[in-house]
């Protein structure tokens, strides 16, 4: 009987604990401030890496906006207040956090890092009548559901491999064959799919077969062993190996191809990994000559009143966060641009009301340090091109489009 009383006491104690926890729920009064809310990855796979770069971009944007007096509408200046919460690099948690933001009255959302998180967040935003500017989720699948409140400043996944194909085919001599290794995640698969189509239009043959990216050269997302894909490629002697994947897989592909004697005649290209400092530090000399597609390069002739020119953005950002101007995370530029687009839409709407902001975003046409921002009916920014860089002497060198190229591409890229 004593034990039963004990069990009962435990239950009551639990109830009290729960009630106490409920009292502690956070509230956020925004006053005349405007609040931007973002789930960010501070721990887990993206924490202290891409998640951190995204956060730095958001912070830099908000600081810059506020230093210029904030956003002005309704005849007043409104400072921007950035609210973030760690999603532990778990997509489901990102979604929960955004839902929680809604409960706190935070309707203006900036995306978490990556396609997975953004895809999970999008339906929540849509349901809650929040509005989200997406700066780091490029998977075209996000835009195939007919969402009305998701706007992406970055180019979609479809252009990651296609831009590489375009850049390669502009080189002399253009490659005749490429092999495409693709990770199993949605973003990488969609990017590879479009790349194969583009290669066909440019007359480039994809080896070992056009659909290999779905079978023999498909690798587990985030793996550090892509040997099976490389062995499948070995013997087909491609001119270039393109890796449609993230950092782990790209680093593994470059290292293991040397181990396996798989030597593409002209070199390597990869989607997301090369334009990140981590790629260079991970591969050292082996990163030399690798091509990579990127959302933004400082060479573009674009500027705005908040950040100044693209070059000024780079200088100020890298100074603030201690990056080198030759190796910087482009994710931060994406993030800052997303944050800026939201601010511009508020200014245009003359209100921070989410419905008004959404309407303003639909018709937004803005030239920024990031390039032209304009959304199509699905919410994608198709006006902005992708760029291609090559790693030369451990620095990002823009080589495509050719009018922005600061140096000649080293071609063939391998000795």
């Amino acid at each position, binding site marked *: 009987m004593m034990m039963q009383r004990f069990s009962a006491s435990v239950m009551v104690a639990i109830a009290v*604990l729960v009630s106490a926890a409920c009292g502690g729920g956070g509230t956020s009064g925004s006053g005349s401030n405007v609040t931007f809310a973002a789930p960010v990855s501070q721990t887990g796979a993206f924490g202290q890496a891409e998640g951190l770069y995204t956060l730095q971009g958001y912070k830099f944007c908000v600081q810059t906006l506020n230093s210029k007096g904030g956003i002005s509408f309704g005849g007043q200046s409104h400072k921007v207040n950035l609210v973030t919460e760690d999603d532990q690099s778990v997509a489901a948690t990102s979604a929960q956090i955004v839902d929680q933001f*809604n409960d706190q009255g935070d309707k203006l959302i900036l995306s978490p890092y990556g396609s997975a998180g953004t895809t999970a967040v999008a339906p929540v935003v849509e349901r809650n009548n929040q509005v989200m500017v997406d700066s780091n989720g490029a998977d075209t699948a996000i835009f195939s559901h007919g969402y009305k409140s998701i706007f992406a400043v970055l180019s979609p996944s479809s252009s990651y491999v296609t831009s590489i194909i375009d850049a390669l085919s502009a080189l002399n001599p253009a490659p005749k064959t490429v092999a495409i290794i693709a990770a199993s995640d949605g973003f990488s698969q969609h990017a590879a799919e479009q790349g194969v189509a583009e290669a066909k239009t440019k007359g480039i043959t994809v080896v070992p077969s056009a659909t290999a990216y779905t079978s023999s050269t498909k690798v587990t997302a985030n793996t550090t062993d892509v040997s099976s894909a490389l062995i499948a490629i070995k013997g087909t002697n491609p001119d270039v190996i393109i890796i449609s994947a993230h950092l782990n897989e790209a680093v593994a592909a470059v290292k293991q191809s040397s181990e396996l004697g798989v030597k593409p005649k002209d070199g390597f290209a990869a989607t997301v990994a090369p334009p990140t400092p981590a790629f260079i530090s991970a591969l050292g000399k082996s990163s030399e000559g690798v091509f990579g597609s990127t959302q933004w390069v400082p060479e573009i002739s674009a500027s705005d009143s908040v950040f100044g020119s693209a070059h000024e953005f780079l200088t100020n950002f890298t100074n603030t966060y201690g990056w080198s101007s030759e190796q910087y995370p482009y994710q931060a530029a994406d993030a800052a641009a997303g944050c800026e687009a939201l601010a511009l839409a508020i200014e245009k709407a003359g209100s921070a009301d989410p419905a008004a902001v959404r309407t303003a975003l639909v018709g937004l046409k803005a030239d920024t340090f990031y390039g032209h921002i304009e959304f199509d009916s699905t919410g994608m920014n198709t006006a902005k091109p992708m760029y291609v860089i090559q790693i030369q002497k451990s620095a990002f060198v823009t080589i495509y489009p050719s009018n922005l190229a600061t140096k000649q591409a080293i071609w063939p890229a391998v000795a």
Partner: protein
Amino acid sequence: MADILRGRARSRQGLFVGWIRALTPANSWPALAGLLVFAAMLALQQLIEPGTQRLLTSVFLFVALAQAWNIIGGYTGYASFGQVAFFGLGAYTVAVLMNNYHVSFWAALPLAVLVGVVFAVAIGLPLLRLRGHYFAIATLGAAEGAREVINNLTSVTGGGGGITIPTFGSDAPTPYFGKPGFYLAFLVLAAVSVVVAAVLARSRFGYAMVAVHEDEDAAGAVGINTTVVKVVAFGVSAAIVACAGAFYAFQQIEFYPTDVFDASFTVLMVIMVMIGGSGSVVGPLAGAVGLQLLSQFLRVNLGNFNQLIFGAIIVLVVVFFPQGVVTYLRDAWRTRHFSILDNVRRYRL
């Protein structure tokens, strides 16, 4: 004397009547307290803000998961490290049926549970012959394997690109529950899992599970069909977990194989049961509530350091309360002996 050795029917009432008669003011306390807590949680929903509702919803989810793990891992003594397989299968059954075939959630839910149970029986029959760490690893392998199968059945499940349950407009087979709806759904799920665990624990079957846990040879010798007990316990546990997975899928709308087959779900179930105290009903309950509130509190308030601190707290709890916090408190209550230092010495080398 001859009577007792030959056996005789002792009572003529049906099982249920016997049960009710057996209730006394003393032993019905936990049931009453549980009912009270359930009512309080129902009432609380009207008082709290939505953010807290969601927090509690996740607490309810883990209460159900912890109770489910405790049935197979705590009572029966087979520490499954593959419970997340049932969660993922439940989630994907619902998502595939709703997305590909426009089946309503309520029709998909029992099928999700069925898929979970069938998988549990299929892997349980061969694997429940393994003991200790071997069973743990085999089930871990089964869960990893299940995820890879879902990952590769791209045409049905969307593979690594994830799957979306339609919840908008005419596309939606079942209207979205919304926050209050899911609060209620997970509260009921948690309550059902607690009741199932409590009823099982006090039944003949409950004693059979404990007997299997302690010694299978001895259990067989007193007439317990150990295979049936193990498979049924595994199946009941899987049913609860698959049901939780189904609700979770609908709540999330959009998810990936890596989300719903995430081994950390299993690990959390185990930790919650162990930290609360296994083989009782209140242990996992307290473990789930305490740990989920703690981890969410840390995540929101500690930023970069939250997982580090969470890990350190687990280490400290294991060292100071190796038998589980609730079990420690219960024994301390019983013996009036509260020394934590003695407790640390308990399992020391």
